[in-house]
């Protein structure tokens, strides 16, 4: 019988960081930090026009792009990341779905010349070709995330709340 010593820090001990974690990946500086609070909405409709009219604003047309805080994730799916305090549109009786998921996820900001290197440690996308204006649902290793390219070398990462501690430490692990 082989006895393996317990871990000094186990999976249940992990907590999401509250202050920026800074360092470098491949010698390029990068910081991981908690993002500002946002209002999050899951927006669904078959017809972009219906949704656009109901919200009273334009929506991004191409899947995988974002426009003023709303990303198009799929043919009938958009996701909004709006400033804290933004109202949740009250719509009913129309062929669309608006669901407030503000508390479902938390956001991280990954920023710096090493941001792409930090993210591709676990994200299979070709982030060198993921310019600002792109946004998509993807994974970091086994965990589903949304990745928004906000500016050159600055990414916003959305992750469901209970996966956040694991994701924070998994990204931070490579920033030394």
């Amino acid at each position: 019988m082989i006895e393996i010593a317990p871990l000094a820090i186990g999976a249940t001990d992990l907590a999401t960081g509250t202050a920026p974690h800074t360092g470098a990946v491949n010698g390029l500086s990068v910081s991981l930090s908690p993002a500002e609070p946002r209002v999050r909405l899951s927006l669904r409709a078959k017809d972009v026009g219906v949704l656009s009219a109901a919200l009273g604003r334009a929506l991004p047309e191409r899947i995988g792009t974002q426009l003023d805080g709303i990303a198009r994730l799929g043919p009938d799916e958009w996701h909004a990341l709006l400033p804290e305090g933004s109202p949740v549109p009250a719509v009913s009786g129309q062929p669309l779905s608006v669901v407030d998921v503000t508390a479902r996820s938390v956001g991280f900001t990954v920023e710096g010349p090493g941001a792409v290197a930090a993210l591709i440690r676990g994200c299979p996308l070709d982030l060198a070709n993921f310019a600002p204006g792109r946004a998509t649902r993807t994974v970091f290793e086994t965990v589903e995330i949304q990745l928004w390219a906000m500016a050159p070398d600055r990414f916003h990462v959305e992750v469901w709340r209970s996966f956040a501690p694991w994701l924070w430490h998994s990204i931070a692990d490579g920033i030394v």
Partner: protein
Amino acid sequence: MSGYRLSSGGRVDRSRALSFSFDGAGYQGFAGDTLASALVASGVTLFGRSFKYHRPRGLLATGVEEPNALVSVDRGPARVTPNVRAPQVSLHEGLVAESQNRWPSLKFDVVSINDRFSALFPAGFYNKTFMWPRSAWEKLYEPVIRRLAGLGDSPVTRDPDHYDATYAHCEVLVVGGGIAGIEAALEAAKMGSRVILIDEQDELGGAALADPALWSTLDALTAQLFAADNITVLTRTTAFGYYHQNFVGASQQLTDHLAPSEAQGPREKLWRIRAGEVVLAQGAIERPLVFNGNDVPGVMLASAGRTLALRYGVAVGRAVVIMAAHDSGWRDALALIEAGVHVAAIVDIRTVVPADLADAARAAGIALHLGSAITAVAGRHAVKGVTVAAGGTGPAHKIACDAVLMAGGWTPSVHLWSQAKGSLVWNEAWGTYLPGKPQEKCRVVGAGAGAWHFGSGAITSVLPNSLPVSRQKAFVDFQNDVKARDIQLAVQEGFRSIEHIKRYTTNGMATDQGKTSNLNALQIASGVLGRPVTEIGLTTFRPPYTPQTFGALMGHHKDALFQPVRKSVIDDWATAQGAVFENVANWRRARYFPKGGEDMDAAVARECRAVRQSVGIFDASTLGKIEVVGPDAAEFLNRMYTNPWKALQPGRCRYGLLLREDGFITDDGVSARMADDRFHLTTTTGGAPRVLGMMEDYLQTEWSDLDVWLTSTTEQWAVIALQGPRARDVIASLVGGIDLSPEAFPHMAVREGTIAGVPTRLFRVSFTGELGFEINVPASEGRKVWEAIFDAGQPYGITPYGTETMHVLRAEKGFIIVGQDTDGTMTPGDMGLDWAVGKKKPDFVGKRSLARPEMTRKGRKQFIGLLTEDPQELLEEGAQVVTNPDAPIPVPMIGHVTSSYHSATLGRTIALAVIADGRARIGETIFVPMADKVIRAKVTAPMFYDPEGSRLND
């Protein structure tokens, strides 16, 4: 063999001497050496013992194909890596290596007695011999075989190293950094492409490293490589797997080539590369020749002898004999002479060789034996001489020598090409398979494509000998000890396909995966069968190309990051309260809250009493939740669930039962209609992803006409279950905007308002049989609301409870837990849930299956309660139920216990079970046989407490 360091030459840095140890003895080498080259330079001949016969073995090759020289490298406690190929170990100061598979020592090994009796250990020996008596296998044969076989030792402690991983993208990936690979990379880089060039060695150059004439070319090419800013060069990196759509896995060694004290950061890095095009430039591996005595230490590949001399400045012996079937052996002989190595003779199986080679060899003073073969090798731990016979069977004479180099021709490395499903074409001239048509965007360049300039050769099987093959020690697979006679035997015993021959003889199944043996085995089988090689088949190439560490494959998934453990927002509070946790799916949940040294039973009993008598608080946040929104929401749920949903009024809740298409229960949960076009669904904790996936599947593939959308809200809401007769009193002062009176807010209703100032969806539901609420608040506010309720509950002795108490309370009421009381073969009827099936509904998922005769036949298992005759006797969950314990074995079993608990409320044990025709047996006594006794129990309805439900509606 008595190797020594040549006075000059090679790429080693003679100004930097390095000390190292092998099997406890101290040696010296130079920077740039490998463990293998430094040991050969020190005169070491014996590197290891073979797997089966424990035969003494020396170095065969200088590349990854090395089958013999497997060592354990010791980098300190918990850092011993077994089965590393000595020619792949870069020398560093203080390196500690040990040989393997020997006892008590490398020179004297007890098990090598196997070798003396090797005639008794033919192919298939284990299968044939150790079958009888059957009982001896576990106790005798297997333990003994396990002790004797095997290679290095597995680690027994945690790996203290960490490992990195990354994805990478490029337009062109070049695998192999020889000249062909470098040229391909430079060419691709000119087009502006992102290029990644990977090579398994310490330095780029491949075979050119053993050809000083090419070094200046190599230097110029590598300078261009490093000058290009769009080429990433990864050395010490092995592309081990080629997966769909040009996805290549590679592992990079980061610290193993450094002294442990200098090693910093991750040990290895996993590269997951997606490439537009893959260029394979992996070169070719030389084939050994199969002849009697070809495994005596000191017999090695000619390419290895050449590499040792020209790359490392090491002579393999003082008198070298070349056994050739290919021109390349002659070229190697001439190169060795030029490097200062004495070549005593060239023996070639061919009678005619190119005149320029023969002339040059004669001019160099080498004795030539054309049309001849080595028929025996003298020496056990090192070559002392060879016997050469004309035609193999003619007059024999002996040649004194201390090293034999084999030049059997070349086998292109088509491993990755084949993993990528590229076709292979047999080439008679080369006696091997060459790449044919690609399946992926992939091409092969250089020697790997058969484009080489090593001359030509004869294709051989076993070299001719007057001894019959069955009496020769002519090895094919050196690591697994497969001899030519084993292949012969396999064919004689009826095996025809190379896949079968491989498994019977274990040829090609060692850690080197047959890199040097597969083609020779094919030729021998072909010869014995009298059929062309192409009719015998070819074994499948599978990843990994070379053995990889688990650490490299795991990457980040180690220790605390092994996998995410999901915790609710109440988890920290529960931890502070001393909760004991359990894992449910990938969540961890508080199981019970022991106080003052209570065990689980005592804590659960106290928690149960608190809920029944006053009020308990429970974290139900992990329940799956789905928001179903759209004009067709009710229609959609009506099709998914068994019961009717269209008439449900906003503000009301309903229990929903979900079947699979086969009619069996897959999930359940209470759901609420928030508005005409909006429902709030709940699922079981473990079932959430499955249910969402199933519903999406139906929506997208069957009913894409419906205007309804599903959104997972599991993590949006923290759910606080407040259960017990005082539950309303606790929240009365906290709730705003909701009339809590029973008339205004009945059981199975939902209201929206605030609690502790936080917006809430307040459900009046109960999984305990008590008055109860499930308070949904945004997860970000969950902890705050929980604490507000906990404070408000103090006057009532509010008691936190965990999943164990929840299980007991629901069992007292006979509420099922899908997956515990059901097993994937239970219908609503089986579980007594017919009331939840809409009889008038035209359809729902599973309805058609419920109409099958099997689903309603007599004798199906039905859900019932069990009360043991001894009220303190606790049945074991999973225990089988019988009607007559005295019936002859096998006793017919009518069902099993699904849930069993002590009920503090009832002062006795209770159990739930599924048994054949259960409902018709209510009142009967059944038996539960255990190892030491038979337990008697009475069948009851699955309801032990408040059957009228009066407590719910208070």
